[in-house]
């Protein structure tokens, strides 16, 4: 009896995590470069209730009578499908089509990766004009260094090629390449990247090291589009369906707890 109480409680706890994840997806439905997450469950251990079991016609079965002890959250997976390109008037809005990530240098000096290409030209502490994200982290070039630009060049005179190559409009109206391009990095297992908040991801053991698209041979390179940002890939209809399932599953498990409780009460009332 206590077994069913705890089993149902494990189900309620798991569904709570499920709703937490769904709520996070929904709140990030308009976050640039956000990748939707999904909660996956696994069964808990099985106990043997009775050693000998028989089939319907009375023959001995090779397995024991087992009862499962509930569920647990197995994994919360990110789903790295491509988000839709959203037109943006900013000249430094970049959209990656493909599996690459931008690299940025965080405030703590570490390297982080992001799909959010909402960049601006900013002045760093050395007085250089560098490409940075909205909180001021410097964007890395294909050499892993900050991308600098002459302060005299107008923002609208800088163009980014499909490979991320940076060029600016010279005095004669022709574009001059700076030799730098926006760095793009890929991971063997992008799902394993560690989430740091603020749209930033960090490489770790699971994801494998960052592989620079410019220097790794035989890699399938991504393409950059200027003037677009990547929309979130959260599908609201999916999330609503998942939310209905989660709520009903939560309710069901609470009913199982109520039933267990009623049965316990009846057992208590045996002795009058």
């Amino acid at each position, binding site marked *: 009896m206590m077994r069913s109480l705890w089993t*149902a409680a494990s189900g309620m706890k798991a569904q709570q995590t499920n709703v937490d994840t769904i709520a996070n997806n929904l709140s990030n439905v308009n976050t640039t470069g956000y990748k939707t997450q999904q909660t996956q469950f696994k069964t808990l251990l099985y106990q043997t209730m009775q050693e000998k079991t028989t089939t319907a016609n009375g023959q001995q079965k090779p397995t024991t009578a087992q009862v499962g002890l509930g569920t647990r959250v197995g994994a919360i997976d990110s*789903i790295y499908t491509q988000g839709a390109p959203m037109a943006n008037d900013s000249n430094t809005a970049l959209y990656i089509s493909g599996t690459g990530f931008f690299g940025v240098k965080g405030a703590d000096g570490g390297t982080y990766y992001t799909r959010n290409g909402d960049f601006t030209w900013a002045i760093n502490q050395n007085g250089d004009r560098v490409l940075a994200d909205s909180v001021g982290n410097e964007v890395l070039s294909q050499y892993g260094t900050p991308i600098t630009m002459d302060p005299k060049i107008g923002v609208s005179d800088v163009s980014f090629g499909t490979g991320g190559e940076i060029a600016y409009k010279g005095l004669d109206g022709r574009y001059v390449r700076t030799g730098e391009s926006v760095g793009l990095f*890929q991971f063997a297992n992008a799902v394993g990247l560690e989430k740091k908040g603020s749209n930033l991801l960090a490489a770790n053991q699971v994801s494998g090291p960052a*592989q620079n698209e410019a220097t790794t041979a035989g890699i399938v390179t991504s393409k950059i589009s200027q003037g677009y940002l990547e929309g979130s890939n959260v599908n609201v209809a999916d999330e609503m369906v998942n939310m209905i399932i989660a709520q009903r599953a939560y309710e*069901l498990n609470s009913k199982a707890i109520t039933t267990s409780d009623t049965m316990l009460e*009846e057992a208590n009332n045996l002795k009058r």
Partner: protein
Amino acid sequence: MVKGLYTAYTGMVEEQRRLDVLSNNLANADTVGYKKEGTVNRAFHDKLAIKIKDTGNYMNAQNIGKMSLGDKIGETYTNFDQGNFQVTDKPSNLAIAGKGFFAISHADADGNQTIKYTRDGNFVVDRNGYMRTADGDYVLNQYGASNSNPNAGNYVRIDPMREYSVGYNGMIYQNDQAVSQVGMADFEDYNYISKYGDNLYGAENGAKIVATNASIEQGTLEASNVNVVDEMVEMMTIQRAYEAGQKFIQTADTTLDAAANTVGRV
């Protein structure tokens, strides 16, 4: 009289166990690849009741009839019906349509490798290109699955930096070339499948692995096949059967009370 008390008691214990199994179904109503479980009750073997010390029939025992003194678990069964598909668009999510299981090389805490089977196709491709479950166990290729060989040489491995597509037979293609095949196996007799937890099944001694003609759907997961209506109705049945057992015990108790305290009163 006391006999009836114990018969009702076995019934109540049995209903408790049925609720335990049912709660597990409800807890796993949203678990990928979960298969509904149920309990079948079985009456104790019939006992022949005879009159004792009845010499009316030339010292032969006088039969009254047969009676059963309670019930126990016959079996816990698993309903291996197909669950519905949930589209995730994640390339490493696979679902099996039809009968069959993915074969997994499972390493226990002591490092022993055994084969486990699962319908949960929520896999990832790690940085070395190995296809693994969410818990880190390796997925076996078709050779490993058919020959029950969990060695490292039989893991599914692909190039992690390239896109891949999985065909209906589990064949994985990269650059228009078949690089590996996700292994599937089936059991001749599902009675030999035991549950391990973590969405895994084990094979009991005597299990026979056979080939399967099930197909694989890429970018989908198989949802749990628990039917909520069935479970709710069964939960009501269990609760009422439990109540009936309780009422019977109370009745037996009242009768015993009368026998002990009223009949003997002068």
